[in-house]
C-alpha cells in the first residue's frame, strides 16, 4: 500500500479549474463539468447532478403516452424560473400555447418533504426505523426554508398550477413551429443565432441557455421523411451545443423512424432517456409491482453523459416509475417488483430493451 508515502508526483489534480458558477441554477460537478437542473429533483439525483452544459439529451417517446411532455415541461419551467433563455420548437401550429401549461414551482420545499414522509411511514408500517430517512436526502432542511425559489438549484413543480405570467412575458423565450417549413435550414439558422449568445470562452458563465425540441420527427412535419437531413441537423446542433453553455433536449418517437435512423439518433445523444406507457387496469402488472395504482408510466435511463472523463457512469437501476404524487408533483421511483426466474431473463447489464411493443430495437449499452 502506498498510503504511507506522501511524495508529490508531477501529476497533481487540478481541482481549481472549474470556475464557481456565479449564475443561479448552475452547479459544478466532477471533472470540471457544470450542471443545470432538469427540473425534476429525482432525475437530477439519478443523473448525478443534472444535465451537463454542452450536452445533448434525447428522450425517446412512446407513441401511446404523453410522458415526454412532463419531462419537457419541467425542464422548460426550471429554465424560466432561473431566468435562462429558452428556445422551444414544436410541430404544432401555435407553440406559444404550450407555454401556458408549464408548471409553477412550489414555494416551500419543506411542505412537500414533510408530506411525503408520513405517507411512507403509514405505507410501510415500520414506525421506528424509518423516521431516520428524513435525515438522509433532505439534509439541512431548516437551512433551505428561508431560501427563495430563485436560488434553489432544482425546484419541485406543481403540475396543477400554471407558471406565473411574468415568467412567460420575458424577452428570452423564442418559440418556433416546425410543422410547415419544408426543410430544416431556417430552423438550423435560428438555433445558431440563439446559441451564439452562450458561446464558451474562458471567462465565467453569465447565463446558460436551454433548447427544447418536441417530437422532432412527427409525421405532420414536411421534412419528416428526409431522414438524412434530420440526422445532419441533429449533428450540427450537437456541434453548436458543445461549443456553448447550453443544454438541448430533443424528444422523438423512435417507432416513426426507420430502424437504422433510430439507432443513429440514439447513438448521437449524450444522455438518452426513454418513456414508456403502461397498460391500464392490468392485473398481472398490479401484482408484479407495488404502487401500480399511482404510476403513470416508466422512465428508462439508457445512457448518461460522461463529459471530460473516460469513466462511464453506471447506474444502480435504470428503470424508474413515473408517479404523480397527489397528482401534482412528478416523482421517479425505483421499481419494487417481484423478480422473475433467472433462467428466463437476462441480467441488467445486457438488457436494455424494456419495450412492450416490438417496434423499438434493443439497445445494448
Amino acid at each position, binding site marked *: 500500500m502506498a498510503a504511507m508515502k506522501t511524495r508529490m508526483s508531477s501529476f497533481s489534480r487540478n481541482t481549481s479549474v472549474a470556475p464557481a458558477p456565479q449564475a443561479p441554477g448552475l452547479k459544478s460537478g466532477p471533472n470540471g463539468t457544470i450542471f443545470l437542473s432538469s427540473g425534476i429533483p429525482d432525475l437530477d439525483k439519478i443523473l448525478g447532478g443534472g444535465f451537463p452544459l454542452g450536452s445533448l439529451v434525447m428522450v425517446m417517446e412512446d*407513441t401511446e403516452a404523453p410522458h415526454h411532455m412532463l419531462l419537457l415541461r419541467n425542464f422548460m419551467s426550471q429554465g424560466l424560473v432561473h431566468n435562462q433563455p429558452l428556445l422551444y420548437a414544436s410541430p404544432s401550429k401555435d407553440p406559444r400555447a404550450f407555454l401556458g401549461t408549464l408548471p409553477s414551482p412550489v414555494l416551500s420545499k419543506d411542505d412537500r418533504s414533510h408530506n411525503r414522509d408520513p405517507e411512507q411511514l403509514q405505507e410501510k408500517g415500520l414506525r421506528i426505523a424509518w423516521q431516520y430517512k428524513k435525515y438522509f436526502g433532505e439534509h439541512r432542511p431548516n437551512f433551505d426554508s428561508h431560501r427563495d425559489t430563485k436560488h434553489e438549484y432544482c425546484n419541485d413543480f406543481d403540475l396543477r398550477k400554471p407558471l406565473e405570467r411574468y415568467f412567460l412575458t420575458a424577452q428570452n423565450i423564442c418559440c418556433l413551429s416546425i410543422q410547415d417549413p419544408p426543410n430544416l435550414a431556417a430552423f438550423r439558422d435560428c438555433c445558431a443565432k440563439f446559441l451564439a449568445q452562450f458561446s464558451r470562452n474562458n471567462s465565467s458563465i453569465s447565463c446558460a441557455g436551454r433548447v427544447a425540441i418536441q417530437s422532432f420527427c412527427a409525421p405532420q412535419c414536411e421534412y419528416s421523411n428526409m431522414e438524412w437531413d434530420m440526422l445532419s441537423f441533429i449533428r450540427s446542433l450537437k456541434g453548436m451545443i458543445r461549443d456553448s453553455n447550453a443544454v438541448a433536449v430533443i424528444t422523438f418517437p423512435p417507432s416513426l423512424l426507420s430502424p437504422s435512423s433510430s439507432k443513429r439518433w440514439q447513438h448521437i445523444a449524450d444522455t438518452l432517456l426513454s418513456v414508456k406507457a403502461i397498460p391500464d387496469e392490468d392485473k398481472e402488472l398490479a401484482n408484479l409491482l407495488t404502487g401500480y395504482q399511482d404510476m403513470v408510466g416508466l422512465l428508462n435511463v439508457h445512457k448518461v453523459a460522461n463529459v471530460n472523463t473516460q469513466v462511464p457512469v453506471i447506474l444502480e437501476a435504470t428503470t424508474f416509475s413515473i408517479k404523480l404524487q397527489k397528482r401534482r408533483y412528478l416523482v421517479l421511483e425505483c421499481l419494487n417488483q417481484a423478480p422473475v426466474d433467472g433462467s428466463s431473463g437476462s441480467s441488467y447489464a445486457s438488457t436494455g430493451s424494456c419495450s412492450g411493443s416490438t417496434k423499438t430495437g434493443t439497445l445494448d449499452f
Partner: protein
Amino acid sequence: MAESICRNLRDGALEGEHAPALSIKDSIATPFGSDVFNYVLTKLSSNILAGKSQSKISILDCYTDPLGWKDSLKGPLDTENFSLKDPIEAVLFRHVRNLDLLLSAIIEMGEALARQGKGRFSVSIDSVTEMLRHASLSSVANLLSKVRSHASRLKIAINGVICKLDIKKVYDQNRISSTFWLLHSDLHEIRAIAALEYLSSMVGSLEPMNLSLNGQRGDLEKLSLLEQNSRKGKFHVRFKRRNGRVRVMCEDFHIKQSGINFTPVSSEEGIINQGLLPKVQFNLQLSEKERIDRAKVVLPFEHQGNGEPMHIYDGRRSLSEGKDEKASVLSENLQTNENSGKGEIIYFRDSDDEMPDSDEDPDDDLDI
C-alpha cells in the same frame, strides 16, 4: 367495448385538447374494416341523435372523380349522374392531390352546415388508404392533425365510397370534435401505419380468429378455419387515456346479414407485460412443492405442541451428545425416509472451536 369507443368519440375533446381520433385497421385476413366503420358511423350518429328528429350529413365525394379527369374530357361523357336515392348532398371534389384544398373544402362545408344549426364537427374518412395513394404521408398526417386540432362544429363525411347511410343530426355543443378513419394495413409501409397510429387516440385493429395456421394441419381443417375467419374475428382496441396509460380491450365480432355484432371475448388470455420490466437473476417466489416443504419445516424455537421439552439445536456436536444424537437422528432418519418431504433446517457451525453460547439465552424472555 365498441360502445365505449363510440361514446368516447361522441364526447369529444376537452378544452385545450385535440379531438379524439379512432383508427380502424384491417388486413386481408380480416377484410371487415368497412363493416366496423359503418358500425361506428351508425352508432355515433344514433348516439348523437337521441331525440332530435332532423339530421344532416354532408358528403365530400372524392371517389367519383378524384383527379378531375372527367372534367377535363369534354364531350359525350355524361358525368352528371349522381342521382342518389337518399337526399344527401354530395359535393364532388376533384383535387385530391392538393390536401390544403381538401382541408379548406372540409372546413367550408362544415361551416355551411354549421350555419344551419349549431353542431359538432365530426369527420369520418372512409379510407385513408385512398388518400395515401394520391398524397404523401406527411401531408396526409398534416391534414389529420389539423382536423384534430380544429375546433369547429359540424359533421361531414369524406368518402372514398359514397355513403349510403341515413342522414343524421348533429349534436349541440361548442368546440367539440371527433374524427375517425379506416385504414388497410397491408397496403402501407410500417412507417405509414405507425405515423397514423401516432396521430390517433384510439387504435382499433381487426384480427382473424385463429392467428396461425400450422403447416401440419390437414386441408379440411384449414378450410374450416378459413371459413371461420371469413365471418368472425377479433377486434383489439388500444385506447390512450388522458393520464398516459393505455387501455387494451378485446372483443369478438361476427358479421351477419343484418350487420356486425360485437361480443365479449370468449377465451381468457393472460397477457403478462413482463417485457416492460427489467429481468433480475434471482427468484424469490416459491413453487408449490417448495411451499409445502416450507410449511412442514419444524422451526427450532416453536413449541412442537406435543408435550416434549424444547430442544434448541445449536449446531454443535460434542462427542457425547453426538453419539446420542446420532442414534436418535438415525432413528429419525428412518422415520423421515418413510415420511416424504419433511423439511429440515440443517445448520453447520463454522468450527467446533468457537465459544459455546453463554448460558444466558437472550431470547429466554420471549414468550412463544
